[in-house]
């Protein structure tokens, strides 16, 4: 009885692990029942492709027969056995997997989890090794400072190599190289605004006097470039000069903006390459928007689950706080995703779905917070209520940027400031409440 239960638990865990990796596949894949879905080898090969980064031959299609399944599984097993870190597949035959035999399937997945990640884990050897050789007296490198200090190099956002590289190359070849500008990223290289002028210049040669802009302050250049792009090329002002005139401008935002230049030049016929490029960038954006929506939906599910938990008020507050923190950390990404790239300021379907999902989960958390505060003994309960009523007008709304409307952005900024001060008083309130609950 215990083995059956253990098998069920492992099946659930391993399935979730597999799906967390298959979600990265294009298109994303999902295993519903591990023992069924593994039989034809298609998902298995997709998983191995994601994990290894290598392409594997796979028999696919509607007319697959058992013989194709066996071939696929065979490909997978052979691949595993040929890895740099030798993976021993004892007692695992292709036919067992094709038959969906639970213990064998679980054994195979476990083997993949264990051995496959060895390469990745051992590349982190120094970090791990420091602890296997040391005893209980730990040196300062394991104190809390190493976890809270920021990483030395900030990785650029995980954009798919393909579209990003191609867009960069397009910028270099059509616009910046001929002017002697060195653009090697979508970040600091754009700070001076010169690169933007170069792109505009490439599309409308007589529009920009490059001599004039070389020595001007960054902000001026950026402002003028964005305005020029809007009035002459119809490109909505997605970026704020003050967000670009920094040491590390947000690469994803800059890339999104530059990509607009691909489609918004009315006089020019787009080359095949440019069309393909634009499609690739759009695909990526839609993919990340969908992933964002899924993340928000998942958080909402957790919030629902958490609200149903029985427990002391203190524990419920902990749960609430941890979910709230996660939501806040996603805010900037959501705001970025909801920037309209259309002339009329409308959102795409994917963007609208993200907005809905955001509003759903943040309203749920707000309601939960209100409920928790009301459950506090007086006088804290009444203080909480007052704060919530006052904040009611400013429900955690993400204001969609009206691309062509300057006044809207001024209002937006004012709202943001309001929100910040409210959030500050709210977090003070939260801290007070947590302290109170600690001692009761």
């Amino acid at each position, binding site marked *: 009885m215990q083995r059956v239960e*253990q098998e069920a*638990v*492992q099946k*659930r*865990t*391993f399935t*979730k*692990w597999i799906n*967390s990796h298959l979600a990265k596949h294009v298109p994303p894949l999902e295993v519903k029942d591990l023992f069924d879905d593994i039989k034809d080898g298609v998902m298995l090969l997709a998983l191995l492709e994601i994990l290894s980064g290598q392409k594997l031959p796979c028999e696919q299609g509607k007319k697959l027969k058992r013989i194709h399944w066996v071939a696929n599984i065979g490909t997978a097993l052979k691949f595993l056995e040929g890895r740099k*870190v030798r993976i021993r597949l004892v007692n695992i035959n292709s036919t067992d997997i094709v038959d969906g035999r639970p213990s064998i399937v679980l054994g195979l997945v*476990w083997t993949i*989890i*264990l*051995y496959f*990640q*060895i390469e*990745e*884990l*051992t*590349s*982190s*050897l*120094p*970090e*791990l*090794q*420091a*602890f*296997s050789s040391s005893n*209980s007296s*730990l040196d300062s490198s*394991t104190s*809390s400072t*190493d*976890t*809270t200090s920021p*990483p*030395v*190099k*900030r*990785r650029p956002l995980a954009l798919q190599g393909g579209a990003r590289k191609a867009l960069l190359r397009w910028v270099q070849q059509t616009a910046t190289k001929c002017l002697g500008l060195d653009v090697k990223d979508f970040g600091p290289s754009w700070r001076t605004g010169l690169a933007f002028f170069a792109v505009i210049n490439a599309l409308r040669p007589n529009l920009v006097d490059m001599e004039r802009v070389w020595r001007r302050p960054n902000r001026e250049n950026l402002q003028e470039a964005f305005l020029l792009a809007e009035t002459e090329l119809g490109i909505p002002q997605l970026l704020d000069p003050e967000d670009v005139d920094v040491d590390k401008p947000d690469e994803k935002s800059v890339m999104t903006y530059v990509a607009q230049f691909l489609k918004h030049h009315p006089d020019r016929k787009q080359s095949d390459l440019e069309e393909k490029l634009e499609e690739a960038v759009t695909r990526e954006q839609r993919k990340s928007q969908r992933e964002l929506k899924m993340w928000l939906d998942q*958080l909402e599910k*957790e919030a629902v*689950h*958490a609200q149903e*938990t029985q*427990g002391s008020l*203190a*524990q419920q507050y*902990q*749960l609430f*706080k*941890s*979910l709230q*923190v*996660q939501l806040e*950390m996603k805010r900037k990404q959501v705001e970025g995703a909801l920037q309209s790239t259309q002339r009329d300021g409308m959102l795409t379907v994917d963007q609208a779905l993200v907005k809905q999902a955001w509003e759903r989960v943040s309203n749920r958390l707000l309601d939960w917070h209100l409920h928790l505060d009301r459950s506090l003994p007086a006088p804290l309960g009444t203080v909480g209520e007052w704060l919530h009523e006052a904040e009611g007008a400013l429900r955690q709304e993400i204001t969609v940027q009206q691309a062509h409307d300057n006044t809207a952005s001024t209002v937006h900024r004012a709202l943001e400031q309001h929100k910040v001060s409210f959030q500050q008083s709210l977090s003070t309130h939260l801290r007070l409440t*947590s302290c109170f*609950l*600690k001692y009761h």
Partner: protein
Amino acid sequence: NAKNVKQMLLDWCRAKTEPYEGVDIQNFSSSWKDGIAFCALVHRFYPDAFEYSTLNPYKPRDNFQLAFSTARLAGCPPLLDAEDLVRMKEPDWKCVYTYIQEFYRCLVEKGLVKTKKRP
């Protein structure tokens, strides 16, 4: 080699949770049963997410939920089910190992763990 990696990951867990009371990680099963070990490990990297000192070892379900939910900040998906962990006499060590390894991998990706490739 697999055994070495398992031991190394275990030692890493022990080192990261050493400052925390109520945690003694000896394996990937019973040591994690009350959920406090998960909370300590996650709290080590996200100390602002919750108050460790208020946790109750007799409320394992709450502890698992809190830990897994917070671990999502690292991008780590909740691979383990709190109900499964509570129902069985001891957590299944392969499942715990799978989760810890995934958590570690996510931390590396976020740059919260220094490695050979990213000092």
